[in-house]
């Protein structure tokens, strides 16, 4: 276990500082490659001393940081460790982590620092069980996250590329293992053509990996509900509790106002429809089409219902509008006599977060914020900006896949034998498989036997 791992070790969110940590043989070298001290010296990293400077990527400053190096074996993992203290929020830590990963570190698995600490003798025996529990829970969670993310367009795209790779591999394998069969031998031209398709598709996916857009623009959030249900109270409550980045930016029409708020580092652009502050019927006022298009454009809808009154036609209209959208339902005014509850409401809408609130009393708002955070980090949002790849682990795998397919293309040009260039082709296929969680195994043989008539 001598390779170097890296991870963000502070909770992702709106905190004052963020810490990115590395452990392994090359930790110091990797850090030296990307750190420039304030005096312009990148070798100024000394054991157990804090150095002040910048993390740079090709002369471009990523962030102002403090960096510390701890020499083995007197560290948490008993390996060389580097910690980089940067600004909080999502962007600096992620950028720094990505930079380290591109410089030879590997993204740490769930609980891997602790695992190394244990395996290297740092933790005592009684802690072993705790270590197992921790690794289990973290792995389960990250597994859940990737599963969620994969339901959408990413898995389709990955499978599309893998399918093409698989048929290339199957054709190569059948040419190698069945040289005397009556099948068309695969040509280098075919392989080059297909490899280029693979390469372009991976590149296209990677280009969506930039979360910059969503982080710049915020999650497009709409608050819906009939008059007097508590929309403005909610908006005010969120604005009060959270730092408003910008307020009162006029929208494209005079009817719409956008508010920017930040919940635990997740920027929300709350589209404040005119209906929110009026007592008019939203749908009637701005028209069904307009209402639909607002809902259509939303990344997140917060729909509020008043449990102290019966569900009205207007409520039903709203339910119809939001049916297939990422929505959090608030059943508000629980401080009054409730006429219906969550279970009743589930008859109308399934698979949504439903939270009971009393906004004026500040009850349930913390649960709302938790839900938004969970949805964001588990990749539940289908971000309108085509940001299909939102998970750093996925991005990392895609980058490896890209390197491998590029090396295949080089090999093809150099007319390297099939069995040699197949190695990188298979690696590329496996890189992508790690995103979708599919393993190697019999797939190749199944493909060979279904596509080619072979065997004597």
């Amino acid at each position, binding site marked *: *276990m001598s390779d170097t791992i890296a991870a963000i070790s502070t909770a992702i969110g709106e905190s004052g500082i963020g810490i990115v940590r590395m452990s392994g043989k090359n930790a110091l070298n990797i850090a030296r490659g990307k750190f420039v001290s304030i005096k312009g010296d990148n070798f100024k990293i000394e054991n157990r001393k804090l150095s002040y400077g910048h993390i740079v990527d090709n002369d471009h400053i990523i962030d102002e940081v403090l960096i510390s190096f701890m020499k083995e074996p007197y560290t948490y993992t008993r390996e060389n460790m580097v910690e980089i203290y940067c600004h909080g929020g999502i962007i600096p830590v992620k950028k720094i982590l990505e930079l380290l990963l591109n410089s030879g570190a590997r993204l740490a*698995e*769930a*609980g891997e620092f602790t*695992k190394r600490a*244990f*395996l290297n*003798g740092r933790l005592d*025996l009684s802690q*072993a*069980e705790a*270590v*197992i*529990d921790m*690794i*289990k829970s973290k*792995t*389960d969670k990250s*597994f859940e996250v990737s599963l969620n993310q994969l339901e959408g367009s990413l898995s389709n795209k990955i499978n599309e590329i893998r399918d093409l790779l698989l048929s290339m591999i199957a054709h190569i*394998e059948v*040419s*190698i*293992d*069945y*040289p*005397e*069969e*009556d099948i068309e031998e695969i040509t280098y031209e075919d392989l080059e053509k297909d490899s280029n398709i693979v390469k372009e598709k991976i590149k296209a996916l990677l280009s969506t990996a930039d979360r910059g857009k969503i982080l710049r623009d915020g999650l497009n959030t709409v608050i819906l509900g009939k008059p007097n249900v508590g929309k403005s109270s909610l908006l005010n409550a969120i604005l009060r509790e959270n730092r408003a980045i910008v307020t009162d930016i006029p929208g494209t029409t005079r009817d719409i106002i956008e508010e920017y708020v930040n919940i635990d580092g997740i920027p929300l652009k709350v589209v404040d429809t005119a209906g929110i502050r009026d007592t008019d019927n939203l749908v009637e006022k701005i028209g069904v089409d307009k209402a639909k298009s607002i809902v259509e454009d939303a990344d997140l809808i917060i729909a509020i219902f008043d449990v102290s009154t019966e569900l009205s036609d207007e409520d039903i209209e709203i339910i119809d509008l939001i049916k297939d959208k990422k929505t959090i339902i608030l059943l508000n005014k629980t401080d009054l006599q409730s006429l219906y509850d969550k279970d009743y409401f589930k008859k109308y809408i399934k698979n949504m977060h439903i939270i009971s609130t009393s906004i004026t009393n500040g009850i349930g708002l913390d649960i709302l914020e938790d839900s938004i955070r969970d949805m964001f980090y588990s990749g539940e949002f289908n971000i309108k900006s085509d940001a299909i790849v939102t998970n750093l682990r996925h991005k990392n795998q895609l980058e490896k896949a890209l390197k491998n397919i590029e090396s295949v293309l080089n090999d093809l040009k*150099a*007319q*390297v*034998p*099939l*069995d*040699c260039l197949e*190695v990188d082709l298979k690696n590329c296929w496996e890189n992508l498989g790690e995103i979708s969680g599919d393993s190697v*195994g019999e797939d*190749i*043989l199944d493909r*060979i*036997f279904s596509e080619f*008539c*072979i*065997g*004597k």
Partner: protein
Amino acid sequence: MKDVKHYDAGEYDIVVIGAGHAGVEAALAGSRMGMKTIMLTMSLDSIVALSCNPNIGGTGKGHLVREIDALGGEMAINIDKSFIQSRMLNTSKGPAVHSLRVQADKRKYHTEMKKVLENEPNLTLRQGEVVDILIEDSQVKGVLTRTGAIYKAKAVILCTGTYLGGRVYIGEVNYQSGPDGMFPSILLSDSLKNKGLKLRRLKTGTPARVHRDSIDYSVMEVQPGDEEIIPFSFLNMDKKFDIEQVPCYLTYTTDKMHEIIRNNLYRSPMYAGEIEGVGPRYCPSIEDKIVRFPDRDKHQVFIEPEGLSTKEMYVQGVSSTLPEEVQLEMYKHIIGLENVKFMRTAYAIEYDSIDSTILKLNLEHKEIKNLFFAGQINGSSGYEEAAAQGLMAGINATLNLKGKEPFILDRSEAYIGVLIDDLVTKGTNEPYRMMTSRAEYRLTLRQDNADLRLTEKGYKIGLASEERYRKTMEKKKAIENELERLKSIIITPTSETNEILRKLGTTDLKSPISLYELIRRPELKYDDLIIIDSNRPKLVREIRLQVETQIKYEGYIKKQMIQIEQFKKLENKRLNIDEDYTNIKGLSNEAKQKLNNIKPYSVGQASRISGVSPADINVLLIYLEQKRRSEKKSV
């Protein structure tokens, strides 16, 4: 049946049941490693019968033969004595997939092997049908034959092939039978079931044999052997093979033949659902090919001689389960076979096999001590696959009896390792055939370096001979010396040198470069560069080939070596094969169940079991460390 009176027929270290390709390697390995061994067979006339095709080797399989040889097995030596045509396949591809494949003289292959067996000092050859395995206290004690003989034994190796519970199918006709008209082994099958072994049905098939003079070769494509003959055995590398090779012929099926098959499909027991056994996908019957690929208007048919002492010809590509009368009709519609005369009918054979995941990596039963299994009974298919397992079973039975550590090759060391790990860790649903694509580390597991990879190991366990070991060490040294020499010779860019290089189809040198570096250029060959390398030592072909391969593919091989290093880390983390995983906290229930079932030998093997997740592997690693430390404490 009346009770047979049993009698004591003697005491042996090892009893091998079956004298096919697995059985003979097992018996020879055992006896050569000093075990008093007896091999029991249904018929001494069918020792190493090539019951299906007359070939040895091919892709993946040729690699296995070389590995068997490198360890001190007999297959390669025997085929070198009895081949009648030799070809190296895949020469247009990289060296890792070059595959030697030869035509065997079936009768000679049998006779030569029988001679070897008869002359082996520690080995007894005996015709007899084993009907029961004697087991006491979960430990094997011997075997009983049909005629009442009890052979006491410390270890038993089952190599039953297609004899075990064999049933032959030809159209509507089916009957209990071994391969090629031999008796089946029915009672043994019952006895194994009574011992609680779960048996399942597998199936394989073989085409008709036809008379050589009834074929019109003028309409076929002749397939001659290679001009340069390369032997299988590393011991024969410097030997001259002065034999006249016999050609094979390529022809095709026709539309009319396909029509006959389609019209009679309902008479095939496969399609009528009478056969429950699963057949191999890479050995489809002609019916299968026509049903699964209806757009193909013709399929290849190879006509191959069965030997020099017979006029029987093997019709490769047309195995069938259709009735005999349909076979006779359809074979006539193969181009050149219009007047064909049948000598043997094509048939399918169904037989019993075990679920190979009940075995340890040394091919021993997990619960019954010193009971070993090899070949088709383990779900594999092919002479070479069988021989490889037989060899390993023979070696490991011996090591068990000597109280030594098992001999296990991992997936990065040999195709044999891939074969056994696949069978034991993953199991198989169809007869398992080796293919190079099954090996993750194909570039390093070449057929040309099997001796460099394995002979030292074979020597250390006491099987590979002194002569073999010495030869391999000399070869190793010669390769190293030559690589060093090539690194030390610097070529300077003179005008003469550049002119030579241009003639060889490459570009000019701009700065001085070592000969080693120069050979890396894809367009240059080691042999060609002798023009600018006047002091080159005289080296045999296989050493020159090694040198060239190691230089040209160094980059790729290094990449693979890094992967192998990663792989080895988990492989070297040994698990206790008696471990009870139920009590390890943190493992998923599915993992506990699968781990208890397979009882892996290492964390690496555990990671290849389906249903064991990376998180479970982490749990195992921590568990191992926990155990190591508490053991250290208690010492």
